[in-house]
Structure formats: structure tokens, C-alpha cells
């Protein structure tokens, strides 16, 4: 690593009170490296296979999910496909659930459903047992989604938790919590909001934030960010 990188990191430390001042190798890094080296030496997998999966993991994100819902809002035939064969619909936005192993990303399985909101039904997803999430099409789950706090409370006090995200739903709307704790993965298809008449797929995709597709927010013209702006910084973040 060059000196300029070092200076950059150093400045960073002063900017963010949140960031822990750890510069020695951490116990987590030691363990990860030791295990990976032993796996390769024992032939459990090859360095090449590890690289292939890393490249796959680095490119997943919420973009294809937003595109899929925007497309469904515009095209009734595609919407029908999305609601009956979501895995097939994903291919049209460039996501093949069998990638990159030929049988999928192992922890994400091969059973995906899109939950359609209606004027009287609102869905929100959780995995109360771990962090099951439609990773191939929506990327990695946010930290809060994995916490015991969200998992403990959303199943029992969904309206209170949604209100903490700024989402108040009227009594006439049924709130349905989808606890995805086995092999199915779920994503919410929210209602297309008023004020988006004549919009293009690109415009619609922009307001379909990750939080809307989890069900803790509703799409709204002019809102293109997730609800919470809080980000805890990493000590040694993923290198792009």
C-alpha cells in the first residue's frame, strides 16, 4: 500500500468519531486468513473458485430489483410473470439465480416470490431466525435488518416498528409480515404512487429504494434514498 493511502486513512480517523481506532490486525482477520489458507492447502476449494465467488459477491446490489418492479409497473404481462414465476422474471433484468455455482448462491436457495401490495394489503419482510434476504437481486441486507432488535419486534409490533421508519399505515390496510425463515426468499412489490404518470422505467426505478422493496417504506416521487442515513464505517472496508 502506498503512502498516500495511509494518509487518506489517517485523515479519515479524525473525521468520524464513530470509527474505532484499530490499526493492528484484528482477531477476525487472523481467523479468516488462517481458515482460507488451510482450505486451499487441503484442496477443499481452489483460489480460483474463491475469486469467482468474490467477483459474484462484489457485483450484487439493489439495482436489478428496482428495475424489475419498475418494469412490472409498466408492463402488465411482465407483472404477471413476476408474480407467478419470479425467478424467470429476474432473468429479464439480468439476474440468474443459478449463478455462480450452477445451483445458485448456496445461502440464497432457488425459491423466490414477489409479494404484491394492494390498496388494502401491505407486506414487510423479515427473517426472525437469521437474515434470509433475496440477496441475488437485492444485494446484501442492511445491518439493521440483521439485528435481533428488528427481528424480535417486527413480528410482534409491526405497526410500531414501521412507524419508527416513518411509515404510518391506516387501520383499513392489512399489515402482513412475511417471516422468511426457510428456503423461500421474498421481496415486496409496492403500489405505484400517484404523481408518476407518464414516467419512464428509469424514473420509476429511482424511487424504488431498497427499503421500499423490504416494505419499511413506500415509494414517493422525489425520494430516492433509504430511510436511515446512518452508516457505521468499517475499519478496513471492502476494496472496490
Amino acid at each position, binding site marked *: 500500500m502506498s503512502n498516500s493511502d495511509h494518509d487518506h486513512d489517517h485523515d479519515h480517523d479524525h473525521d468520524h468519531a464513530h470509527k474505532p481506532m484499530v490499526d493492528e490486525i484484528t482477531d477476525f482477520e487472523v481467523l479468516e486468513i488462517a481458515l482460507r489458507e488451510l482450505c486451499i*492447502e487441503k484442496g477443499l476449494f481452489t483460489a480460483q473458485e474463491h475469486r469467482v465467488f468474490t467477483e459474484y459477491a462484489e457485483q450484487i446490489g439493489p439495482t436489478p430489483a428496482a428495475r424489475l418492479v419498475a418494469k412490472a409497473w409498466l408492463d402488465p404481462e411482465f407483472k404477471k410473470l413476476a408474480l407467478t414465476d419470479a425467478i424467470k422474471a429476474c432473468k429479464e433484468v439480468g439476474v440468474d439465480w443459478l449463478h455462480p455455482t450452477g445451483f445458485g448462491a448456496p445461502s440464497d436457495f432457488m425459491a423466490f416470490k414477489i409479494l404484491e401490495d394492494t390498496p388494502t394489503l401491505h407486506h414487510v419482510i423479515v427473517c426472525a431466525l437469521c437474515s434470509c434476504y433475496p440477496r441475488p437481486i437485492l444485494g446484501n441486507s442492511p445491518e439493521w435488518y440483521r439485528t435481533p432488535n428488528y427481528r424480535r419486534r417486527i413480528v410482534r409490533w409491526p405497526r410500531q416498528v414501521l412507524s419508527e421508519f416513518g411509515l404510518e399505515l391506516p387501520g383499513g390496510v392489512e399489515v*402482513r409480515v412475511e417471516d422468511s425463515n426457510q428456503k423461500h426468499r421474498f421481496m415486496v412489490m409496492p403500489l405505484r404512487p400517484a404523481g408518476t404518470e407518464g414516467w419512464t422505467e428509469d424514473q420509476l426505478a429511482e424511487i424504488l429504494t431498497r427499503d421500499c422493496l423490504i416494505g419499511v417504506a413506500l415509494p414517493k416521487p422525489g425520494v430516492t434514498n433509504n430511510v436511515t442515513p446512518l452508516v457505521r464505517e468499517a475499519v478496513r472496508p*471492502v476494496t472496490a
Partner: protein
Amino acid sequence: MSTAAERAEQLALVSRLKTVYPEVPEWPTPDEISHSHWLAYMKTPHDVGGELDYPHPYENKEEEQWELMTYVLCEVLAWRGIWVTEERRRIGNVDVGRSIYLGLPYYARWLWSVGRLLIEKKHIDWAELTDRLVEVKNRYPGPLNGRRPEAEPKFAGDGKSVRRNQFHIKAVGLGDPPVFAGTADPAKFKLGDRIRVRDLPAMFYTRTPEYVRGAEGIIAEVAYESPAPEDETWDREDAKSEWFYIVRFRQSDLWDNYTGPNNDTLQTELPERWLEAVNV
């Protein structure tokens, strides 16, 4: 090398880590443990739905390089037939015990599960792991000053004598659960059937949350065939498949004093062994 004073300080830290109920002493005698306490100790620590908690701020988090590498490590081990996801979910979310479950970062448990897996399945022994931990640590004495720790395997093994599961070959081109299609007996329940979740004294591993046990609901979808997690988690490739169902519950049936509207619902997915018919 630690000094006597450093050892005493670490022991004082460990002594503050509480792992038992405050109302029952450590090492209780059998008469001090009630049935409810027994169930609480037997409960798998990953099953947190409905536990009491207060609002916390919701935060995002930038990913550490080792966290991404840990995720990749776990997934590549599954890709190459060393384990299936259900084994990982037990080792990293349940076998860790409550202290580690609640006390360490999310991906630290994924990592812990890999070490445990490799030793239990005899891919490495204790000394190989321990020696390597010392060696890696010694490669990076003092501050890193912007250096990034890297894996440096000494050679690449041919992997010819490694024991791998059949699943990672059979599932290619199909995925999981489609690979199990057609392997279960006919489904006992159909769409709209009223069922009750059995209240079983589940030990060691299950994915049926405690909060639905004993509750009545309706079949919202006959989902797919697969071995139950209670079998799949122990690397039992001979386990018989069964049908899984998405079950819909009324929130007011699940929770005492549910304060939302009467039509609020919750759905979750359960294997057939946990369900019994309700005659209406």
C-alpha cells in the same frame, strides 16, 4: 506472554459475562430448575421473534473486507460440497451458544462456524488451526499502516481425498429446493386448510419459531419439497423429503393483546412434521 496481572485482569473481564438467569445460582441443583427455565435454556438462541426489546436507531454499516471474505468462504465451502447451508445456519447461529450469539458481530459467527466445521469433519486438526492462527498473527506485528492482510497459502492441495456431499453435484442446473422435487410423499394439506402448529419439545435445532407453536393458521401456499432443516442440518443426505407450507396466522391469534387491527397477519414457512389438521 501474559503476566500474572494481565491474567487476573482477563479473568475479571470473563467473570462479568453473565450466561445464567439472575434468580437462579450458577450450577443449580436439579430442584432449582423449573420446566420453563429448562425450555428457555433449550431454546435455540437464533429464535428471537417476539422477545421484548425497545426501539433502537436503525443503522446501515459499511462492510469490512474480512466480512466479505467470510461470506465468500462460507459460500465456496457449500459450492464445493463441504457443507450445506442448513449446517452453517446451525453451527453459526445456534451451536455458538447465547453469549457468542448476542455478544459478537454477525460475520464473526459465520467465521466461527467454519473453524468448527473444518475440525468436526476432520478436514483440519486443532494444532493446524492453532499454529496457523499464531503464524498469521506473527506476520503482522504492530500497526498495519495501511497494509491489508492477505491470505498466503503455502501450496494448493489437489483435494482428491476430500469427502464431499452428493448434493453439490445433484443440485447443478436445478438449485435447492427444486433438486428435491418429486421426492416427498403426497402433501397432507392443501391451500386453505386450517392447521395447528405442534408444540414439540424441540432440542438442538429447528427453524419453527417458538412464537407460532400451538397457534392455528391456514395454509396459504403448498410451497416445495425438501428435507426438513431438523435433518438437513446434521448432514443427513439420506433424509426423506417432506412438503413445506407457507402458513398464514392472524396476529391477534399469535400475540396476547395484539394492539393492531384484527385483520393484520403474519406468514411463515413450516415443514409438514410441525403441522396437524384442525377440524372445523
